[in-house]
């Protein structure tokens, strides 16, 4: 597909948006440009999306192009695949990623394989946006990340913005991509007042069109002593930790993955080759998680051993508990990152 004129990552004047606003703005702008785009999902019409992803779109584009659906994820995601095969570019919302279990077949066996099974003759230009993450006491069926669940299965691209600027640019790229793109937005960053919001996620977001490329990580803080790889909310924890570490002379580099499939292995390797140390911070379950993938990528490719064993912080392999005293005990945070890095630098080999 040929792309219309768009600047790549050229920020304009200071214009602070939340991720929610950045997403709905991006979708709205694209819908103006391309009449084949439509949005479907539960409560994305008049309500504007439970997480504000479609605010104002129903009013602007009407009920034909902004469609509330029944609570029938298999049918409406399946329908989106059929639309995508027939000239439309659907954007669907799966309200919480935790609900993937009722509709994963339509996603991974249908959408993600349409191009392959058709030998490239039928594409699937579909964006599936879905909320991830916990930390606000919503318990074990509404707080999961499941990054690796999607990152493990081929045929989909998977993006996870940590801030509004990237969210807009990634959403534009996702919409224009001819493949299924899973757009995971973290509730702690979304900028819905009622969920609280990590301040760093609200940043300068140009009104004009720009693309953040899918598959490119971003160094959000340069440093020389250790590479902290994060994604979504953990990027902000990593940055906070890095600020604290800097006070005692430890210079951490923070890498925001932004995309987990395809994973930007080059950027990871380049950073770790420079710093010689690696900590991956993830709020998804630990085992077979993105942290393992990053560590394996580094260890199998780096010619020289690291200065100390690579480490990961993730949600342990247990369901997410409701009570805040337990939930916050388990989730990664700046404090845990900071002390882990101090230990890593103290225990060199």
């Amino acid at each position, binding site marked *: 597909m040929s792309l219309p004129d768009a600047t790549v990552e050229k920020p304009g004047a200071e214009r602070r948006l939340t991720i929610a606003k950045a997403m709905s703005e991006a979708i709205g702008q694209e819908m103006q440009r391309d009449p084949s785009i439509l949005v479907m999902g*539960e*409560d994305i*019409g*008049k*309500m504007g999306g*439970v997480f504000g992803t479609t605010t104002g779109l129903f009013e602007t584009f009407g009920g034909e192009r902004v469609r*509330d*659906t*029944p*609570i*029938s994820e*298999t049918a409406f995601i399946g329908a989106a695949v059929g639309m995508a095969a027939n000239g439309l570019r659907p954007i669907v919302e799966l309200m919480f990623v*935790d*609900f993937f*279990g*009722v509709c994963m077949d339509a996603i991974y066996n249908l959408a993600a394989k349409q191009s392959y099974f058709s030998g490239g003759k039928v594409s699937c230009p579909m964006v599936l946006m879905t909320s991830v993450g916990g*930390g*606000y*006491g*919503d*318990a*074990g*069926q*509404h707080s999961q990340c499941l990054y690796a669940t999607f990152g493990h299965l081929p045929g989909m691209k998977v993006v996870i913005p940590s801030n509004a600027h990237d969210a807009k640019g990634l959403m534009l790229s996702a919409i224009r991509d001819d493949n299924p793109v899973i757009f995971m937005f973290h509730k702690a960053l979304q900028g819905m*007042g*009622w*969920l*609280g919001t990590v301040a760093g996620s609200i940043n300068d977001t140009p009104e004009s069109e720009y693309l953040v490329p899918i598959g490119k990580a971003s160094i959000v803080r340069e440093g020389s002593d250790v590479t902290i790889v994060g994604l979504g909310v953990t990027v902000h924890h990593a940055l906070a930790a890095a600020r604290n570490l800097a006070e005692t002379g430890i210079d951490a580099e923070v890498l925001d993955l932004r995309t987990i499939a395809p994973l930007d292995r080059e950027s990871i390797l380049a950073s770790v080759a420079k710093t010689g140390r690696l900590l991956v911070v993830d709020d998804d379950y630990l085992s077979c998680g993105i942290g393992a993938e990053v560590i394996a990528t580094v260890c199998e490719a780096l010619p020289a051993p690291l200065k100390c064993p690579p480490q990961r912080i993730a949600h*342990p*392999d*247990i*369901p997410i*508990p*409701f*009570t*805040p*005293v*337990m*939930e*916050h*005990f*388990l989730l990664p945070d700046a404090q845990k990152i900071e002390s882990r890095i101090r230990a890593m630098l103290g225990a060199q080999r």
Partner: protein
Amino acid sequence: MSSNHSKRLWMYAQMVKSRYFEDLIKPAYFEGKTPVFNMAKGPLPGEMHLSDGQEPCAVGVCAHLRPDDTITATHRPHHIAIAKGVDLNAMAAEIFGKKDGLAGGRGGHMHLFDPAVNFSCSGIIAQGMGPAVGAAMAAKMRGSDAIAVAFLGEGAANQGAFHESLNLASVWKAPVVFVIEDNSYGISVPKSACTAVASNADRAGGYAMPGHHVSGNDPDAVYAIAGIAIEWARSGSGPSLIEIETSRLEGHFMGDPEGYRPKDEVKRLKERDPIPAYRARLVAEGFEEAELDRAESEARGKVDQAFAFARSNDYPEPKEAFDHVFA
């Protein structure tokens, strides 16, 4: 008649208990969440789905149930849990995330498990339907006449699990009753915008099971129909589907601005609040005010006690999070 009297008094008291439980939830939920509403804060973090207005569904059904009958309920579970007899102290403590909560704080308000009365609920739409069929089959296979009831919302009736579970229950003649609480909305989406048929009871025919529709949000009417369906199940005739017209007097969850609702809809619905209406009917039919007052204050007392228990109970140790992942 006297049994009828005591059942009706019980239903009234349970409705009051449930409503009062939620009346206490409301201010507690907003503690620490003002002036800027943040769901993460306060003693009751996370989503909170109230059942105000839907009490007739719970009491009319549960009035027929025994502790060994199973209920699987939804994300909006309080009224049903209370009518089923879930331990109120432990339930309140769970919602507050305390150590003597039903699950020691691991589950929270959408995941209330009380095996003593065979109650559970969950946060995924229509998720409890399969388990209800399974519980019913377990009873049947052990030769018991215990039954199971799966509650769901009208929005849930468009989920695949609904279809699969009704068919499976019918094929296996499982002693289960599916009860749809039709409050007209799935979050913001009205039933008419997402359901092909006017009455979900009509879908029962697709599974060769009886389908019942109950209008009026009326505990007596629910009681009558639920009695038929439950007896049908208990006597070995198989599953039934009941759709109950009810009303959601609050937002989908607490904090919901409800911009999608017609202006005075809630006001109109509150004028038809089933609890005062039921009281008025009972009085008109000869119940003594004093008797009703007594039942009310007893119910309230239990709720007050449960909240006091929950508030004063300690939080669990953080590291207990690692317990009970496996049996």
